[in-house]
C-alpha cells in the first residue's frame, strides 16, 4: 500500500509580470518521499516552493495538506504550517540569540507564550538541543554561543538543527547548496537526506543535476510548467538536456 498523500498541488497558476510564473502545475508528495526539483533559472522553482510552504497563495488551483484544503482559522492554519519546515537560502537565523534559543525557535509553533518568553530568559530543553547538535556533528558546548559568532558551515547546521527541532513532516529547501563549497554541499545534502526518527518528505530545488543520488523522484520544471515527473531510475540524459536546452546556465 502506498504511503498516504501529504501535499497535493492541483492545477496551480501563479501570475507574474508578463509571463505567468506557474501554469497548470500539479504535484503530489507522499510521506517520506524525497523529490528533487530541477530546472533552469526562472523556471518557477522558488515560486512552487513558496506555494508549497503556504507563503504564496496561488491565483488558481488547490493546495491540499493531508487531503484537506488549507485551514481557514488562524490556529488550525498554524498547526498545518508547523508540519512544514523550510530551509532558507539565507538561513534566517536570529543573530542576537544563542544557538540554543535559535534551535528552540523551531518549537515556537507548538509552544505557547509562557514557554516562548521563558526561552528568552533561560534557554529551555537543553538535552533535546544538545542531541540535535550531536546529530549534526556539532559540539554541544556551542549551545550557549551567540549565532553571530559561528562559522558559515556551523550556521548552516544550526539552521538545519532548527528544522530538526520543528520535526516537520515535509521539508522544503530552495537551492540550499547553491552558495556552498563542494565539501559542505555534500555534507549538507547527506544530512537533508538522512532518515529521521519519523518518515520525512523532502522537496528540494537544485541548480545542478549531478547531485540526484539520494532522491526517489525528479520533477523537471521549465517556463512555469512541469516538463517531466518520474522516478530517478527512469530519468535519462535526454530529458535533462531537453530541460536545460537553450537556457542560460
Amino acid at each position: 500500500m502506498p504511503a498516504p498523500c501529504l501535499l497535493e498541488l492541483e492545477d496551480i497558476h501563479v501570475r507574474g509580470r508578463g509571463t505567468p510564473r506557474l501554469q497548470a502545475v500539479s504535484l503530489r508528495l507522499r510521506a517520506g518521499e524525497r523529490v528533487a526539483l530541477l530546472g533552469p533559472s526562472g523556471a518557477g522553482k522558488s515560486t512552487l516552493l513558496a506555494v508549497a510552504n503556504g507563503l504564496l497563495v496561488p491565483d488558481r488551483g488547490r493546495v491540499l495538506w493531508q487531503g484537506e484544503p488549507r485551514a481557514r482559522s488562524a490556529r488550525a492554519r498554524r498547526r498545518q504550517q508547523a508540519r512544514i519546515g523550510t530551509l532558507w537560502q539565507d538561513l534566517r537565523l536570529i543573530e542576537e540569540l544563542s544557538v540554543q534559543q535559535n534551535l528552540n525557535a523551531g518549537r515556537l509553533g507548538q509552544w505557547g507564550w509562557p514557554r516562548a518568553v521563558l526561552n528568552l530568559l533561560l534557554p529551555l530543553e537543553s538535552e533535546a538541543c544538545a542531541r540535535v547538535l550531536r546529530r549534526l556533528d556539532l559540539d554541544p558546548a556551542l549551545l550557549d554561543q551567540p549565532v553571530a559568532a559561528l562559522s558559515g558551515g556551523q550556521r548552516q547546521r544550526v539552521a538545519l538543527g532548527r528544522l530538526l527541532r520543528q520535526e516537520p513532516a515535509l521539508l522544503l529547501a530552495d537551492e540550499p547548496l547553491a552558495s556552498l563549497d563542494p565539501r559542505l554541499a555534500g555534507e549538507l545534502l547527506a544530512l537533508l537526506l538522512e532518515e529521521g526518527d519519523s518518515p520525512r518528505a523532502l522537496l528540494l530545488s537544485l541548480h545542478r543535476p549531478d547531485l540526484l543520488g539520494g532522491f526517489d523522484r525528479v520533477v523537471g520544471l521549465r517556463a512555469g510548467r512541469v516538463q517531466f515527473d518520474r522516478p530517478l531510475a527512469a530519468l535519462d540524459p535526454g530529458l535533462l538536456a531537453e530541460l536545460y536546452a537553450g537556457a542560460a546556465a
Partner: protein
Amino acid sequence: MSTGTALAEPGWAAPDRWRPAAPLWPLLPALVLLPLLALLPGLSHGGGWNLVGRFALAALRPSLDPLVLASVLRGLAVTVGLALLGWALSLALGVVLGVLSARVVWGHRAELIRRLLALPRSIHELLWGLLLLQLVGLQPAVAVLAITIPFAALVARVVSDQLDALPTGRLEALRAAGVAEPAALLTALGPPLLPQVLSYGGYRLECALRSATLLGVFGLGGLGTELRLTLQSLAFEELWTGLWALLAAMLLLERLVGWLRRRWTMPARFGLGSDTGSTGSGTPGREVGRRGRELLLAAVLLLPLLVAVAWGLQVDPASLLRWQPLPPLPPADWAAVAALPWPRLVANTLVLTLLAAALAVGTAPLLLLLVSPWPWGQGLVQVLWALGRLWPPPLIALLLLLVLKPGVITGALALGLHNLGVLGRLLMESAEHSGESREQALLGAGCGPRLALLYGRFSGLARPYLAYGAYRADVILRESVVVGLVGATGLGSQLLEALSGFAYDQLAALMLVYAALTLLGEELSDRLRRRLLSG
C-alpha cells in the same frame, strides 16, 4: 560582535544562565507598569469619570460651528507659522554655530563655543518663552525666539558632532593642495553633512510644531491657548475641533517630511534598525543632481514664505529690544533660596523622568505585540499614538487631573503618554523595515504573529531602540518642567512658581540646578547610547 555577554557586566550578571535575551530588552521597562497600576487606585480622587466619558464621546462629534472653526483655523495658522519661523531661524543659526563649534574647523576655540552652547540647550523652550514674556511682554516674536534659542543650540550640537565624526582625509588633501580654508571646508565636509542636517532638520520641524502648540498652552499664542481654555471650561466639543485640526496638520507634516526624506534619499531619523533595508535607489548619480536642484528650489521658495508668515503674524524683532520696566524688586534673599527643599526637588524630578521614560519606552513594544494579530488594532494604536504626541503634556496632565490627584505620578503619566506617541511611531516604522525575512521564516514554521514579531523583529531592534530610548529620557528630563503645573513635580513646578512671582533669586538658582541636571543627564544618556550601539 561581542560574545553574548551584552548585559553581563560586573554586578549585574547572574552567575548562571538567567539572562534576558535581546528581544525582551525593549519590554523590560514596561515592568514599571506594575507598581504604577498598583498605585493608581490610591491616586484617583473619586470624581471626574463622567467628565472623562464626556470628553471621549466629544471626540466623535466635534463642534462644527463656523465661529469655532474659524477661530481654530486662525489659531492653527498662528501655531504653524510660529513653528515654521522658529524652526527656520534655529536651523540657519544652528548650522552656523555648529560649524563654529566643530573641532575640525576651529580647533580649541570650538571647545569654548561648545561649552557656551550647553546652557541655551539645557533650558526648555517653555522656560525661555516664559522668561522672555516677563521681560518684553506678549509678542509673537517671543514664541519664535523661545523656539529658536534651544533648537539652534541642539542643531549646533548635532552639526558639530557630525562634522567631527567625518573622516578628515579629504579635507587634509584639499588643505595640502593650498585650497582656501572656507572652500576646502565646504567642498570636503559639505556633501556628507548635508543629508544628515536635512534629515535632522525635518525631525526638528516636527518638534517645532509640538513646541509651538505647547507654548500656546502657556498663553504665548496660537491654537494651544484655545485648547487649554476649552479644556478648562469643559467645552469638549470645541476642544476636539482644535485637536482634530491639529492632528491633521501634524500627520500632513510628518508625511511631507517622510516623503522628502525618501525622495532625497536621506538617512532615517536615527538609523534605527535597517539590517534588511531595501531603500537602495537605482541611479545614485542622477539622484544627487536632482536632489540638488530640488533642494535649491525648496530653499528659494521657503524664503518668501517665511517673510510672508512673519509679516502675517506681525512678528516684530525690534519689539524684543523694548524691555518692559520691571517692578521694583526686593533684595535677593539667598537664605530663603538655600532653604528650599533641594534634595526632594531633585529627587522628584529624577523620579518623574525615569518613570515617564520607562513608561514610554516599555509600553510601545508591549502595545505593538498585543495588537500585532489584528490590523484594526494596529490602526487604533497608531491613532492613539498620534494623539499622544500631538497633545502637549500639560494638556494631558490637565485631563488626567479630572480623575487623578496632582503629583509626581500624574506628571509622569502625562509625560510618558506624550513620549509614548513619539517612541511608538518610531518603533512601528522601524519594525516595518527590519527583520522581515526572519519573521516570515517563523510564521512559515507555524509560529503565531506575536511570537514571530518578538523573535523575528524585536531581536534586531532591541539595541537601536533602547539607544533611542536613552536619548528620549534625556528629552524627558528637559521636558519635565512643562508638567510642573500639575503641582509637586520637583524642580519644574518650583520653577514655574518662581517665574510667575518673578522671584529672580530663586529663579536663577533653580535654573542653574536644572541646567546642571540636564547636562548631567545628557552625558549619561550619551554614554548609555554609545554602549548600546557599539554592542
